[in-house]
């Protein structure tokens, strides 16, 4: 290890060699299991990055409950990084993290400070988050609080991971509720969270987008995300795009799950994403094992290796997704001022309005549907800066049965392909 290494440089180097980095969501409560899992991920065929996914007690800030669960020997659904002493985490990572195997912390907390302190103390540099995306979908933390917490979180990460180390932060904004959010809004949120991170001192980012219902629309979205990032992020900021394999209701059959995973790997390569967070065939039923994670990584890496990368310059088209995402970002940033304040204003006024999101700070006046061609569309735009949905030929409102069909549409399609 000579040159200073970073999560982003590792991904860039893999991309230069034509490889897509594949990464699991994986977390275990004990250092022994966690280390064993990371060893297996590191040894998997393909360019892999490691993950410490944090348990949900630590996520909600209930460190007492995480400690009690460890003391009782109860199984946790992730690694309690703020409860194990830093020396224990360092030891578990010793000989695992390296220039060719970075490890990222994924957690989902709207109160990230203890997690950021713990990961920095353990020698880690890379994590995931977002003032909107780690707040609105899952809980009741007020958006104002989450914005403040994440502003401080970014600054803390920058401070606690000093040069020659490089703090890295990934936006979760390209996922939100996992399904049924039209891509223009996902792309806009990812870009806005990236701008927020940059404003608070983070110089190396990844911008996420989660696979949705239609491969063509998804490819437009990833390209739109790359174009907007290039247009809007300060030139000093290094960034890449990370794709998430479908985050909604997952196919129930192994064959269906594998096909969806392979489709996401092909989408990543064709659209110019440089990293893929995979899902396993076990996902529909329970928390996957290490072996299931490794299997998913290797299937994704193999599918990616067989896919042609995009021709240069194809991200410049004014696609529908790009225009919509640009309208959102423009409306939010128009008033000037800090990005965090602009985000709060935009949600308060319903300019950004995540469909089906029940958080008290989300306006809740937008609705979406899957159209007959399989693309995600708005059926109600509320106060968002979009043309109102045309009355003629408009897609009908979602009913309860319609919603059920929509959330299962991808699973059904991949389960039932002959």
């Amino acid at each position: 290890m000579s040159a200073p290494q970073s999560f982003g440089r590792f991904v860039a180097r893999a991309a230069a060699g034509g490889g897509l980095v594949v990464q699991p969501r994986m977390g275990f409560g004990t250092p022994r299991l966690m280390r064993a899992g990371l060893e297996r991920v590191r040894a998997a065929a393909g360019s892999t990055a490691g993950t410490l996914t944090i348990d949900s007690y630590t996520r909600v800030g209930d460190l007492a409950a995480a400690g009690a669960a460890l003391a009782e020997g109860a199984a946790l659904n992730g690694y309690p990084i703020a409860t194990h002493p830093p020396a224990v985490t360092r030891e578990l990572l010793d000989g695992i993290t390296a220039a060719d195997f970075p490890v990222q912390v994924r957690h989902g907390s709207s109160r990230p400070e203890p997690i950021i302190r713990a990961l920095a103390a353990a020698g880690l540099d890379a994590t995931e988050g977002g003032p909107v995306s780690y707040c609105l979908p899952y809980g009741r933390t007020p958006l104002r609080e989450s914005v403040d917490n994440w502003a401080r979180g970014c600054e803390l990460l920058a401070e606690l991971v000093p040069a020659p180390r490089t703090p890295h932060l990934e936006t979760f904004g390209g996922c939100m509720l996992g399904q049924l959010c039209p891509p223009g809004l996902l792309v806009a949120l990812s870009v806005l969270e990236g701008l927020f991170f940059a404003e608070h001192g983070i110089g190396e980012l990844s911008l996420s987008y989660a696979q949705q219902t239609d491969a063509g629309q998804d490819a437009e979205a990833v390209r739109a995300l790359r174009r907007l990032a290039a247009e809007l992020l300060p030139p000093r900021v290094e960034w890449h795009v990370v794709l998430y394999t479908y985050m909604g209701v997952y196919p129930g059959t192994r064959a269906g799950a594998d096909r969806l995973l392979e489709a996401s790997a092909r989408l990543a390569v064709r659209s110019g994403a440089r990293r893929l967070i995979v899902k396993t065939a076990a996902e529909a039923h329970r928390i996957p094992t290490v072996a299931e994670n490794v299997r998913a990584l290797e299937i994704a890496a193999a599918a990616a290796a067989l896919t042609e990368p995009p021709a240069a310059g194809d991200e410049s088209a004014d696609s529908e997704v790009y225009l919509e995402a640009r309208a959102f970002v423009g409306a939010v940033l128009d008033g000037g001022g800090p990005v965090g304040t602009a985000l709060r204003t935009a949600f308060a006024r319903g300019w950004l309005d995540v469909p089906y999101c029940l958080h008290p700070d989300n306006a809740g006046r937008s609705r979406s549907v899957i159209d007959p061609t399989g693309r995600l569309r708005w059926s109600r735009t509320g106060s968002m800066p979009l043309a109102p949905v045309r009355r003629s030929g408009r897609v009908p409102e979602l009913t309860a049965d319609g919603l059920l069909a929509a959330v299962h549409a991808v699973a059904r399609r991949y389960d039932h392909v002959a």
Partner: protein
Amino acid sequence: MSLPPTGQTVLVTGTASDSHTWNLVYLQLFVEELGYRVVNLGPCVTDDLLAEACRVHRPDLVVISSVNGHGYRDGLSAVTRLRRGPGRSDIPVVIGGKLGVLGERSPEAAARLLAAGCDAVFDDADLDALREFLTRPAAGARTAHRHAGSTV
């Protein structure tokens, strides 16, 4: 396909430890189509928040949904708070979802919920039972009879 308005309000809510929301979004549409106005409290609703929302919105029925495996425990706590805590209320309460971690119905746990003041306990995905509860004569009225939903 929607039924005519009943003029009644249903409060749909998650439980304190449950961050899932798609179940609540679905239930809102389902209950609205049966002619009710819905107030949806969303996920991670504490017992006190639920009690306060009942005081403010004065719903005709509370529908608690839980899918994270803590439903028996969290639901018992919520209905106990509602029936016995400050500002105690007799608004009918039903609960359903994946209530236990084992993925199977526990008659003992369901009996505890009924004894604590739940008006019905529905199995996961037993929407016919919920529909029947909501469409029978005087559904949601404060005179609702105690009734163990399950297979009905």
